[in-house]
């Protein structure tokens, strides 16, 4: 187990390094000049050259990448070309907002998705099942910006129940969380549904029912717990994805998170900030994979046997 974990961490390091190299190369393949993006459309060519020199963009690619890597391992991702902010503190400053929104979204996904999954599995092929299925498809296919603006228009602008946008108390969190979580809830409902349908036909469920256990106990304790394992995998990756920032939801609701930061960085060709935000997301995904791997073993002791 320890050996396996160690090799996973080693792979994580390789993955991060590969990501950094890829992003770096892509940034240089794009036929656009960060110095020009910084200097503005009116800048004189010589002035742009001066800025390239100062930002170190005139050095060979390998030297630039080496410099980046050397600093990155010490936790220094440099400063944004555009705003002059230090990259890592800039990401950390936005992390609480992103974390809050991620938890909000996840909450909506689980609170709606899991019970609906159980319910539809129990009532398989009935009108309830079909209705939830159709509604779920709609929720999954609706674009986030449309859903977000529609909720804003109804609940905030017309009825004035909730704030239109912005970052603040719990009231600010409700609409973005729903926007973010609704599609996921539909997805989880489907996932739990199909797992539950399988599990409900398993021998141990039949045994539990034969013992005369109440149906609720059978559903939750025996069936649902076993249907949960695949959900857990997706959940870990989902959380990592949510924590690396959700561009559309953050944009629609003026939510000052990492997604918005990354979006701005890409539009401005802000190399250090692009590297920082992408590596941060990559790190979260890699770390989440490892954490899920560990949790898995506790939930299902069969996994990991023989390794």
């Amino acid at each position, binding site marked *: 187990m320890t050996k396996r974990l160690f090799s996973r961490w080693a792979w994580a390091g390789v993955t991060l390094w590969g990501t950094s190299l890829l992003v770096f190369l892509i940034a240089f393949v794009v036929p656009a000049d960060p110095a020009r993006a910084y200097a503005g459309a009116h800048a004189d*060519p010589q002035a742009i050259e001066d800025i390239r020199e*100062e930002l170190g963009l005139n050095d060979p690619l390998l030297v630039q990448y080496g410099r980046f890597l050397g600093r990155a391992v010490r936790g220094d991702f440099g*400063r944004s070309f555009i705003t002059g902010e230090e990259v890592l503190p800039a990401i950390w400053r936005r992390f609480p907002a992103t974390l809050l929104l991620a938890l909000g979204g996840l909450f909506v996904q689980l609170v709606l998705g899991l019970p609906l999954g159980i319910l539809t599995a129990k009532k398989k092929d009935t009108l309830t099942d079909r209705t939830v299925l159709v509604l779920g498809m709609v929720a999954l296919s609706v674009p986030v910006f449309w859903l977000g603006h529609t909720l804003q228009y109804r609940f905030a602008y017309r009825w004035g129940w909730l704030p239109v946008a912005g970052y603040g108390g719990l009231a600010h969190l409700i609409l973005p969380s729903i926007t973010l979580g609704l599609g996921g809830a539909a997805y989880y409902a489907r996932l739990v549904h199909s797992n539950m349908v399988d599990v409900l036909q398993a021998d141990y469920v039949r045994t539990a029912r034969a013992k005369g256990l109440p149906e609720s106990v059978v559903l939750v304790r025996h069936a649902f717990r076993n249907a949960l394992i695949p959900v857990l995998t997706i959940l870990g990756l989902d959380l990592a994805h949510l924590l690396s920032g959700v561009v559309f939801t953050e944009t629609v*609701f*003026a939510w*000052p998170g990492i997604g918005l930061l990354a979006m701005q960085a890409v539009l401005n060709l802000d190399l250090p900030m692009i590297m920082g935000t992408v590596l941060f997301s990559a790190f979260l995904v890699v770390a989440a994979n490892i954490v899920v791997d560990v949790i898995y073993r506790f939930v299902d002791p069969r996994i990991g046997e023989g390794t």
Partner: protein
Amino acid sequence: LKLFLCGNLFLLLLLGCGREGREASDGQRGGTLHLAGVTDITTLDPAIGYDTGSWAYIRLIYRGLLDYDEGTRLVPCLAEKWDISPDGLTFRFSLRRGVRFSHGREVVAGDFKYALERVLDPATTSPGACFFWGLAGAQKYREARQAASRARRENPNALLDPQIRAAAEGVPGIRAPDPYTLEIQLEQPDVSFLNILAMPFAYAVPREAVEEYGENLAVHPVGPGPFQLEEWVRGLRLRLVRNPHYYEPGRPYLDAIEVTFGGNELVNIMRFERGELDLSSLPETDFVRLTSNPRWKPNLLSQPQMAIWYLAMNTQMPPFDHRLVRQAVNWAINKEHIVKIINGRGVPAKGVLPPGMPGYQPDLKGYGCDPERARALLRQAGYPDGFATKLWVRTGRYAGEERIAQAVQQQLAEVGVKVELYPLTFSVWDELAGQPGNCPFTVSAWFQDYPDPSNFLDVLLNGKRIVPKHCNNLAFYNNPAVNRLLDRAAAMTDLAARLKVYQEAERLVVEDAPWVFLYHPITYQLRQPWVQNVRLHPVWPNRLEQLWLKR
């Protein structure tokens, strides 16, 4: 005459509403103004900021030698008066006494000298550096600083060449003979340089603040302006409060300005309509609804922008190397229609210079819309069946540009010109369109840096400024007669005569038609009824120091 009538009408209105008039000159003090921005501002460092968002707030915190009146005329600000030497090379400014930075120290001439040298130092990476390269000795200073910083990078302990060290010490063309006198000397006469000195790049900056905060000056601004920074949570909100040391008695009226960032125009207009915001721009989607709403109509403000949207035709690439072809394309395009597409938020362009710009020629005929004439010109040019070309379109920067491109495509199809639209991300477009021989035909726009015709004609159309990369002359237009006129005008000190030369150059440009002159945009803003004395300005993004809240 029209202007005169308007003026009188305005006077009558003022007399009619005496109470309003008195209050406007003596507004109520206090209150917090609530604003929202779509993106966070870039910086509050006057050497670095070079976008409307940053300028809007830098101008509230810092101040310069000169400012503009309600229009484009330069007026004293921290300089009480100035004079220009007869040879047009030296400007001498007498500074206002008793002006203090927000940390309490008095502003002296050395602060301007320091600020300008800081902008010129390549290590500052100021996007405005090139505006000041005309200062006497500026190029030498720039090179010496660059050499010194390179030498230090290679070997931190090396002794610098004494000549480089001396040249890196300061710019000889910026002198502060006493604390209240600043002398600026140029290499060549340039009356537009006063406009450059009014740009935020030239605002006074205290050396001790730069030494204390270094690169973080962007978030720790120290200036003599009407407001000072209280809090700036990046990406979230910005709060400015009254600067207790501000020199204009009784100003500003507002206690504080609070800006929240993020979201988009759609969200901000909803917040505005709910009364959460005091001022708002108008999103394109809601423009017609809001401008026709009797509730908001009286609170709508508009201001023609000193800008132009145009289509650049590459005069070095066939078929646009043929003047008749370029004229034909101009005649084929209906500018009135294009303005309609953008909800009427602009005026059709007849030439290069926007209305309100010194030297603007209202009697310029330009090109109307005459497809018949366009077809005749194409026949004459040897393209009786038209031709095919690619129109480069930038995406993701300016709303509406793609629709304009589609309209152009349809209109040109009517005269037999087949246009293929070629969409590019803004930064990629910016890199590729500025290289010769790349881009035959493109949508583009230009916003002034300062209100002087040279900032349009010379920067965008002087053939001598064609460079192999990042060229601003997107039509690669090179008419020696125009170049000569532009060079002559640049060195002239007689303002009226100088404008005449620019006008002559503009007439030649219009005749040669390197661009399709599309339109000059108009900017709109909405205010809440309690927000008083809001006036939009042709140069500045706002003048919030004049504004007050009625309770």
